[in-house]
């Protein structure tokens, strides 16, 4: 008769009670798994950013434009490996509610800069670079609208007007559909050729939104950023250069303090189960006082009894928590397409699972240690005498 057998029998002697405790633990870990993953994906712009990537924006605000002539001057700065630019298009497909995150970019340099983020089929990539009227579509967008390579699609801008047609729609041929090349990258985005867009837009010609560049070495980031900003100081378009991580962090902060909200909700859930499970465990062990007295009489050492009680709360915590994390895994798969670009690459990742396991151990110990201590201290005579 092994200890594990006894622990299991003890835990399930009152089935309803064990199941209820597990449900409470299950809920807390489900919330932890989903919200923890969401927070991680939401902040991925900061944590998942390339160490050598910098973003140059107009100092007034990132929505203000800069002259395209700035691009070549940035390229000449020492320590810049490659520089490209992007321009917000404000696009939607057919109806305004089908919003598409869309950018006009300089294709070859842009794909070089973001090369580590997206995976392309080589032939499709070549086709995209070769055709000025083509567009590269993230697989999340392609899936949403059922687009295939070769399709001709219209994108309408809520900002710009197309001079060649007089309306706000541009037509593109889908040349490539790309997929994420690493963890925490969202593909809820499309790119097309700046030249094609620039020639046909009604205003803002030869201006660009942001310059994005890769430095040759992360240690040079500050120096490069200072050099670029110094280059344009006192010009009509002063710049502010920051790392991609800092830029994304500031952007996420504008939406709100998601980390704080997640911490509060998960904290509340854990306090709840701590109260429920802790109380119930104390009660469950107290009911068995007499039995523990018998075990002690039979010669079970104190340490073994201590371990058995603690083992029971740990087992409980692991069953409830494990099921909770498993459900969180399924919930993340379900939620990923719904949250889209808001939390790119939402999935139950290893760091969240490991933290979850840590919390299970902690929960098992905290809820088990008081009843275990009580059992340890128990005097055989009082135990057997107690009703």
């Amino acid at each position: 008769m092994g200890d594990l057998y006894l622990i299991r029998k003890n835990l399930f002697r009152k089935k309803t009670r064990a199941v209820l405790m597990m449900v409470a633990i299950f809920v807390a870990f489900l919330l932890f798994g989903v919200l923890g993953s969401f927070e991680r994906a939401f902040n991925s712009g900061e944590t998942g950013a390339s160490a050598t990537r910098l973003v140059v924006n107009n100092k007034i605000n990132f929505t203000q434009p800069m002259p395209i002539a700035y691009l070549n001057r940035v390229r000449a700065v020492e320590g810049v490996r490659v520089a490209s630019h992007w321009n917000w298009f404000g696009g939607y497909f057919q109806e305004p509610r089908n919003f598409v995150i869309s950018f006009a970019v300089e294709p070859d340099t842009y794909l070089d800069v973001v090369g580590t983020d997206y995976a392309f089929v080589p032939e499709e990539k070549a086709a995209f670079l070769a055709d000025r009227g083509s567009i590269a579509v993230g697989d999340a967008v392609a899936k949403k609208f059922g687009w295939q390579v070769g399709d001709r699609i219209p994108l309408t801008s809520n900002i710009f007007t197309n001079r060649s047609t007089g309306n706000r729609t541009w037509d593109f041929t889908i040349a490539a559909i790309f997929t994420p090349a690493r963890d925490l990258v969202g593909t809820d985005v499309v790119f097309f050729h700046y030249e094609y867009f620039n020639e046909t837009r009604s205003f803002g010609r030869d201006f660009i939104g942001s310059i994005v560049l890769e430095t040759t070495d992360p240690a040079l980031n500050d120096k490069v950023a200072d050099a670029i900003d110094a280059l344009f100081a006192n010009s009509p378009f002063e710049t502010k250069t920051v790392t991609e991580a800092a830029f994304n962090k500031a952007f996420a902060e504008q939406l709100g303090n998601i980390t704080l909200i997640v911490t509060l909700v998960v904290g509340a859930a854990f306090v709840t189960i701590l109260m429920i499970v802790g109380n119930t465990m104390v009660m469950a062990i107290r009911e068995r006082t007499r039995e523990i007295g018998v075990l002690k009489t039979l010669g079970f050492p104190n340490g073994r009894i201590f371990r058995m009680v603690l083992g029971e709360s740990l087992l409980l915590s692991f069953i409830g928590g494990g099921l909770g994390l498993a459900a969180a895994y399924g919930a993340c798969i379900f939620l990923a397409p719904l949250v889209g670009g808001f939390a790119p690459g939402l999935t139950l990742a290893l760091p969240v699972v490991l933290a979850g396991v840590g919390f299970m151990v902690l929960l098992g110990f905290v809820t088990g240690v008081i009843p275990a201590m009580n059992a340890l201290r128990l005097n055989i005579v009082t135990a057997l005498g107690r009703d």
Partner: protein
Amino acid sequence: MSLASQIVTVTAINLRSIPQRMWVSLSTVVAVALVVAVLLSFLAMANGFQQTLRGSGAPDVAILLRGGAGAEINSGVSRDQLRLIEEAPGVVRTAEGKPLVSGELYVIVDAVKKASGTQANIALRGLGPEGFAIRDGFRLVEGRMYEPGAAEIIVGRSLLDEFAGFELGKQVRLGTATWTVVGVFEMGGTVFESELWADVGAVQSLFRRTNFFQSIRARMENPEAVSALNDYSQADTRLKLAVKSEQAYFADQAGGAGGFIQNLGWPLAVIMSIGALAGALNTMYSSVAARTTEIATLRAIGFGGIPAFVGTLTESLLLSVVGGTVGALLAYAFFDGLTASTFGGSFTQVVFSFQLTPELVVQGVVLALVVGLIGGLFPAIRAARVPLVAAFGEK
């Protein structure tokens, strides 16, 4: 003894014995309190955001944007279009015969969010000379008005509270120009209080957008005149501007982010309730177990099963109502009036404060009652079925 007095007696015994099960009862109260507090904090956040936006628009002020733009930031309107609207029917005129129409330019600039120390998008609005006559509730509370054409800014109270960099008297460098903050205004906690205001001519010239506007606002004779103005605009090929009442414009924006927060609050609260429900069931089952002898003894001396049922259910409901009330108080103490800011419709920060209303508190207490009801129901059935033989102290 009548059934009613039996119920009263047993319920009283139930409730008075709660202190004997202090800790386990407390765990239910805490669990329900936290669920309700989480729900109410989300609802108060969504409500505060929506109230701020909904309170911003007047029904008789028309806002005109380029068709399809949806928000001021995306729109573009020419000076010629502005002149046409000044001549449009239904527009209120001053005693001197000037139409109450304001062509406005909306530029996004950076400010530092005090809470996080990071840069955030702030609206710098250039207003036409009639911009103030169009808006009700504007009050300059500190400093003075900006001079027409000068690089001077007045700043909204909400913006000043949440963001650094635009304090009264401060010089702010935006592009090539240095602007001075000369005044602070209040406007009833509306979206406009999250903005910087300046003369439209100054903004146009210093941001190189001469003769370019993003929206036109017009005070109309009555709310019906707004839709008449839309027909007028659609009929003229030189205009083709989309006309909405300012009220409808902000109500649309309130739906987006506000609805999102609200849609997040309820599922979270329901999932957490399942955990709390498990706790409530546990508490009530152990309450019934602890009183088995007592209940059976009562049965033996002639009490029915119904009093035991009602007593147990009442105990559960009481615990959850106490929990719900504590949760509402927690939410009130920690969240009501808390200010925060997030993106509004035009890609700029809107400052709002959490608003906990009685209607929301009722929703929270109802959730608590549902937990208490389900959590008490099954244990109450068990209590009603305690066999008489249990009176003889089988333990």
